[in-house]
């Protein structure tokens, strides 16, 4: 597709959708949202890019290979589960800690967040793999 309107709009929309996807992922533990929705949104942003420009450019703009993204996601999700095993608790027990970040204050971090991040990356990777292979046909 070669539409100037779509291409221009994509340039504005893509960063917005990507930022929103991260927001959705981060608030997912206590409010509507989560890793799956976030990952899907991010994949939608890149799919929009692939439609407006072309799939090869999208692949290039992601910088990382999609397989590496999936692998990172899987490892994140897995470590979220296994960290509690290492502490002698059942698999996937939530572990939390407060981290002091200068300028922000206390940030409440936990393994469910790590799991959400993993889901985000896996969903992003797999969806894009399928979408791009369909667009490339």
């Amino acid at each position: 597709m070669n539409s100037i309107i779509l291409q221009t709009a994509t340039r504005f929309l893509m960063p917005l959708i990507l930022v929103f996807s991260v927001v959705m992922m981060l608030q997912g533990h206590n409010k509507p949202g989560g890793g799956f929705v976030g990952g899907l949104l991010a994949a939608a942003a890149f799919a929009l890019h692939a439609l407006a420009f072309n799939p090869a450019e999208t692949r290039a703009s992601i910088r990382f290979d999609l397989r590496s993204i999936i692998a990172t996601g899987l490892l994140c999700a897995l470590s979220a589960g296994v960290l509690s095993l290492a502490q002698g608790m059942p698999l996937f027990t939530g572990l939390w800690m407060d981290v002091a970040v200068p300028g922000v204050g206390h940030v409440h971090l936990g393994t469910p967040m790590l799991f959400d991040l993993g889901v985000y990356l896996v969903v992003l990777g797999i969806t894009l793999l399928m979408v791009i292979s369909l667009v490339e046909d």
Partner: protein
Amino acid sequence: MSTLAVLPVIVPLAAGAISVALWKSLRAQRVIAVVATLLLVVVSLMLVREVSANGIVVMHMGGWPAPLGITFVVDLFGSMMALLASIIGAATALYSLKGIDRRRQSFLYFPLLHVLLMGVCGAFLTGDIFNLYVWFEVLLMSSFVLLALGNERAQLEGAIKYVTLNLMSSALFLTAIGILYGTFGTLDMADLSRRLAATDDRGVVTTLSMLFLVAFGIKSALFPLFFWLPASYHTPPFAVSGIFAGLLTKVGIYAIIRVFTLLFPIDQDFTRPLMLFLAAMTMLSGVLGAVSQQGFRRVLSFLIVSGIGFILLGLALGTRLALAGAVFYIVHDIIVKANLFFTAGLVERIRGTSALGETGLVSVYARAPMVTILFFVAAMSLAGIPPLSGFFAKLTLIRAGLEVEQWAVIGVALVASILTLYATTRIWSEAFWKGPERTQDEPEEIEAAPKTMVLPVAALALLTILIGLFAGPMFALADRAAGQLMDKQGYARAVLGEPGAAPAPKATGHGASGDGDSGHGAAGHEESP
């Protein structure tokens, strides 16, 4: 050691994640595949020993207690199945090193194999009915991709049939779970078994049990629902067919056994005659299909269907002996069926064709006596010749049938066994004996049977001989597994504690009219730090 209960899922997941991360290096993926599947065998073996020594192992995910959270419940049957899955997984990984071409391997073949094993093990170990659905989907997703990997025409056509019918079955499974939750307000199988035992509403229970029977019947290829299997299992590479043949339909029949021992009663007027009929027809139609086919793997595909009939027979007869027979048969069938498909791969490499009517390049019997002997062992075991594993499995089932005087179905089982023998001897004479003793163009055939492909076949053949030789201890184990399967209260007690300790809320039992806030499952999932 409840951690042990989840390791058969964690190990393949970790292996899968690491090998995706190393997508650039096929060599690393191959090493990980072999090492991780062997590690899985060790882990599952430890799990079997643990369960065998100390009884049912339970792990509550995330520390949420049983009816609320997801539980892994490992009894002897489940752990034995996980062990078999890991053995077949290791054999497949080894066989795939040379048995799968580089193009397929580089398209994430090994990670998919790990994910498949994770799904299979998860399905065997979980104690939550919805979680069972999720594991089914995990293993189905990876099996879809493995089946279509390579994009050959026959593969794609086979995959469409396989995917469609399996999705149909998943939708039915999901529907049944929805009604089950709406009626009984819980998804934990131990909790469900108590509530189902307490209910008087036979109508809902029978409807649900039939929904599950159809859903799992499609997945395990029972009599009228098996057509997807012979249409797809002969299309992918032999390593993939081998692991599918060994494990996938067995997950379906495992689910039937689990659901009909733990949740639903097999009542005398309706369910038992139906199951006996289905078992008889599955045995018979599978073996008749096998006799009429011309392709090596097509024959074997129909024999898978027939084998499922024998396992269902054990469940349908319902006595402890029969259930032990079913467990024994499942163990035997997983090993032998995977082995036969692996052998089919070797034979095709040697002969140049897998069609039985055609004369191949060379007589396998003359060219590769070792492969011939290995096939002979597996085939005779399948037909039920003593002293191999199949003989004792069938003997147990038939003895159990004679005890409860089900003459007709035992007659069908015997006929099916004889026809199985006929089908395998036909493969033997067509594929192994026919053909010239020497090929004209000798140099092309250098690596027809590489060691990494013969080794797993030999190991599995050895296993079937060992099970035959040590049939006594094996039977004792199967008998204990059957005893545990029949002890519903024991299972529920292991998961939930004594019945009095946590009084289960009364089942609503009136369809979907409750307003859904019975308090169950509605604990606000907000962890306090």
